[in-house]
């Protein structure tokens, strides 16, 4: 099933055959080089010379206070907007616009309310003129996000968590190599958020996807990320680059290792945020 995902990725990539042979797709390699950004209407830089790299299949969290430029950075990674200076390089190619090979997911699911679950999930394939794949791929991705019985429902008749799952299925249908998530779970209740955090990480790992996740929730970063970049505000800079070394079981929480990582990251974050953890959501 996942081999098929790998074979049909739209993007040329040398490692794909390898990954496919092992029954796994290969995620994109992402490099950000000297990226700075200033908005026309405001003075000063929002992002100041960022340099980092994300390995194929790695889950990276961008952690930072509100307004530090996380969404701005993610838009540049997706090609929805372009940086004032510097480059985003994916699989060796400079990003100049959106592509089917990487997909962004937003805080609101933004589904099309006149369509069913399956029609929403099929959109990327339709836009890519790959409609012939809809019949096989859409059921696959709906299965992946646990929504198979809901395929023909109108999306307005779903809960918020289910809607976000549809948005995830929609993002996965074109078999992207990278997912960019902008606080995708922040509007959900704690239980739904937990289960989505676990499922999205599991899916990304099964598919070998590279993932960049924007959050201001320390526990979300600890649960989901292999590595965390803590961003400074005004201008946005990388203050800290730290790995989260936890096994999948430990990420469920409730163990000493998880708590230790959580406290460690919280301390880093608090320090970077100038001792003001007030906008911190925690559970």
């Amino acid at each position, binding site marked *: 099933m996942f081999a098929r995902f790998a074979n049909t990725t739209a993007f040329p990539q040398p490692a794909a055959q390898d990954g496919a042979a092992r029954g796994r797709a290969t995620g994109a390699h992402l490099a950000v080089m000297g990226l700075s950004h200033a908005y026309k209407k405001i003075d000063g830089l929002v992002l100041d010379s960022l340099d980092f790299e994300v390995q194929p299949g790695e889950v990276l969290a961008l952690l930072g206070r509100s307004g530090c430029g996380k969404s701005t950075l993610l838009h540049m990674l*997706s090609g*929805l907007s372009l940086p004032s200076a510097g480059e985003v390089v994916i699989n060796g190619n400079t990003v100049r616009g*959106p*592509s*089917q090979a990487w*997909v*962004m997911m*937003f805080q*609101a699911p*933004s589904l*099309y*309310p*006149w369509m069913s679950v399956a029609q929403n999930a099929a*959109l*990327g394939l*339709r*836009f*890519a003129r790959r409609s012939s794949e809809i019949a096989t791929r859409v059921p696959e991705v709906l299965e992946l996000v646990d929504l198979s019985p809901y395929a023909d429902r*109108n999306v*307005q*008749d779903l*809960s918020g968590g289910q809607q976000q799952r549809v948005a995830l299925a*929609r993002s996965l249908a*074109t078999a992207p190599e990278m997912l960019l998530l902008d606080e995708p779970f922040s509007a959900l209740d704690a239980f739904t958020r937990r289960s989505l955090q676990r499922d999205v990480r599991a899916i990304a790992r099964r598919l070998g996807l590279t993932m960049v996740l924007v959050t201001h929730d320390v526990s979300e970063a600890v649960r989901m990320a292999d590595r965390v970049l803590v961003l400074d505000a005004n201008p946005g800079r990388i203050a800290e680059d730290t790995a989260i070394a936890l096994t999948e079981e430990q990420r469920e929480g409730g163990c000493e290792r998880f708590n230790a990582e959580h406290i460690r990251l919280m301390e880093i974050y608090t320090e970077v945020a100038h001792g003001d953890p007030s906008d911190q959501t925690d559970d």
Partner: protein
Amino acid sequence: MTAIPDTARRNAGAGGFRLSQLARARGLAHAGLGIALLMGLWWLGGRAVANNPNMFAFADFAPGPTLSALWGIVQSGAVIDMSVPSLYRVGYGMLIAAALGIPVGIAIGRLPWLRELTNVPFQFLRMISPLSWMPIAVMAYDTWDGAIVFLISVAAVWPILFSTAAGVRRIDPAWLKVARNLGANPLHMLFVVILPAIAVDILTGVRLALGVAWVVLVPAEYLGVTSGLGYAINDARDTLDYAQLGAVVVVIGIIGFALDSGLAALIKRFNWVRASA
């Protein structure tokens, strides 16, 4: 996956069904009563006219003579002969109005500068009765038909244009961003996102426009043409056949009502907004 107990759901469904049936029966009863009231007023009016020595010549306008004249034109097929040209003119005019109003409405909804540029001129033009253009239309067009279609288009374009523009402005910007992110090209954007999103706004505009067009049609058909419902009215007046005149008036009302109901049904069909149950 919330599990609503089956029995609970069935009961709720059954209750809802009974309630909606009751509401529908009440609606039908009220509609019937409304028609009866209208007929009653008409009949009273006929009586009053017949008893008035200054007006008794118009007494054939009363329900009895009118309805038998109506039956006459239905049987002779004259009702078809007079309706088809009118429907053709209105359809043609509406088509032109939609072909202009929808694209321009979308452009105005999407481009703030265009909205600012056109706002005053369009609001100004909109307030001019389409019939004011009649002398110009008559000069500008070789045929009477052309002039009538022009007048109908002028009347119908504004509701379609403004309703479309308002619909476009209400589109969730995230829908456009997501589509772009998923690789939509401008044509996809238009046909997969924008048009379905505003289908109801467009149809609502068309419905309003049709109401105006149907009203403008009859006086427009007083112009030189020798066919159509407006002509039939004029002709009946000239021949002092007030029963016939009444019959045509009824036909105009029925067709207008049917067209409006058809559009209302279409709007219901394309409406994706969930009624908050």
